């Protein structure tokens, strides 16, 4: 089988974070990401660091996952760092021609880099501890209140569920189509820009056709199973808040409040 792609980044476990309600996790992550932007001093970065480290510790995830989530971004991280280090005016520490490093630059660069790293690590915590299916469920519930303003919460969730369900199937299909066309001498990798675009016809057309055929079959199968929209539907696994979620939300809000206070009132 192809690597189990629908699980994405999910790293199964039973920690406090794994057990949190997805709604609490999504909201908490969003709030804390905003809160990270409040931090502007060494002290407030200390608070952020402590909170990120605490969360990582209670998630029981292996340390190497941090490295994994940062890996695709190391160029950007180094770049961010150097831009700040070299371009911030201030007390010069080192100079060579027009290049100079200032004390403020080093300071700013470190803070900015830290912010970037925390943003990535913290948002990855959400995807490491929650499977996409559970996330979808959480999103549906979070969108429910917006139904009144015309957000089709149930339909969106259903679409996401079906899309997740069909991703592995369509990946296999893509692989098969590519192999079949390759066997007929197709070439996906060379030629002019226009030619490369045209080369995609033997891949994309059958892929869409097959996707539509599947959509049609699936719609028939769903109606045969009494599907008719979200109204009056129940769910097997109802989401339920527990004391855990209350604890987690309180913690996030408290940290956010502290960070806001440190920025604007201290």
């Amino acid at each position: 089988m192809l690597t189990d792609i629908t699980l994405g980044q999910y790293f199964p476990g039973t920690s406090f974070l794994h057990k949190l309600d997805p709604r609490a996790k999504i909201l908490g992550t969003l709030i804390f990401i905003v809160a990270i932007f409040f931090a502007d001093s060494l002290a407030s970065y200390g608070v952020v660091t402590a909170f990120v480290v605490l969360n990582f510790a209670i998630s029981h995830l292996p340390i190497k996952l941090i490295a994994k989530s940062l890996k695709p971004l190391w160029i950007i991280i180094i770049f961010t760092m150097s831009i700040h280090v070299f371009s911030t005016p201030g007390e010069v520490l080192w100079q060579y021609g027009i290049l100079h490093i200032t004390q403020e630059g080093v300071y700013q660069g470190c803070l900015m880099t830290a912010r970037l790293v925390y943003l990535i690590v913290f948002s990855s915590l959400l995807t490491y501890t929650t499977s996409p299916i559970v996330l979808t469920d959480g999103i549906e519930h979070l969108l429910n209140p917006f139904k009144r303003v015309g957000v089709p919460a149930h339909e969106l969730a259903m679409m996401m569920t079906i899309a997740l369900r069909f991703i592995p199937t369509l990946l296999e299909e893509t692989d098969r189509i590519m192999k079949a066309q390759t066997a007929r001498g197709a070439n996906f990798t060379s030629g002019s820009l226009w030619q490369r675009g045209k080369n995609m016809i033997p891949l994309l057309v059958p892929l869409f056709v097959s996707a539509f055929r599947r959509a049609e079959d699936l719609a028939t199968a769903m109606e045969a199973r009494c599907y008719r929209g979200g109204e009056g539907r129940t769910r097997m696994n109802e989401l339920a808040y527990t004391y855990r979620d209350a604890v987690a939300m309180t913690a996030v809000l408290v940290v956010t409040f502290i960070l806001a206070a440190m920025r604007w009132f201290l």
Partner: protein
Amino acid sequence: MSIPMIKLDHMSHAYQDEEGKTVYAVKDISLTIEPGEFVAVIGTNGSGKSTLAKHFNVLLTPTGGACEVCGLRTDDPDNVWDIRQEVGMVFQNPDNQIVAAVVEEDVAFGPENLGVPSEEIKQRVSDALKRVNMTIYAKHGPHLLSGGQKQRIAIAGILAMQSHCIVLDEPTAMLDPVGRREVMETIRQLNAEGITVIIITHFMEEAVQADRVVVVNQGEVKMDGAPRSVFSHVDELKAMGLDVPVAAEIAARLREKGIDLPGDIITKEELGEALCRLS
């Protein structure tokens, strides 16, 4: 007398083809299926089997005549959901009928649509999975299952709706021999538990397992009876482009050559016995 599971009364269904001409896919069929029966429908590609089957679940309604399921007419829009709950369908492509990305969620899909409370759904799902012998796969992703297992999940999805009738449209066409056997075993067992089974198939080994075989050709029912009597018409079936079980074919050819064999042989055991009596 009890109410028939399915009752077709001179039912027809016509499609419009590309040029807008009317083409009859099902023509004037009258057929009654009683609760608890195990019926196999055979016929060549394009003979109208799928069209017929879709009427049982109100995916199509007759363009002529009438179709009743459990005494409810399918052309009355008020009956649609009651009928769909009563008659479940399994389709040919195992990949294209699974909705959710986790097995148990998929089995729960039907009852969820019916508005069954959460606790009861859990119960029904675990029962249904047990009946198709898939309990250990409850938390798996469907893409990790074999074709035969996927079809059993589809069957479980119907059981969870507590339907009393299952219509299977070539459920084994895309499976390997092992998957085919698994699915047929499951179906036979469910029929023994009292569920009405209607199976469309191209495989004669499967048709002989039914209590009754209906042969459809060009939209009409050409034969209807016990497998034994239907498969004794070897030449007629072959003329329609259908296969017959090997033992039946051998027996028929030997009869043509003047060997005195009974006309209702369909298994190798029966052939063997009949030949033993000869000597």
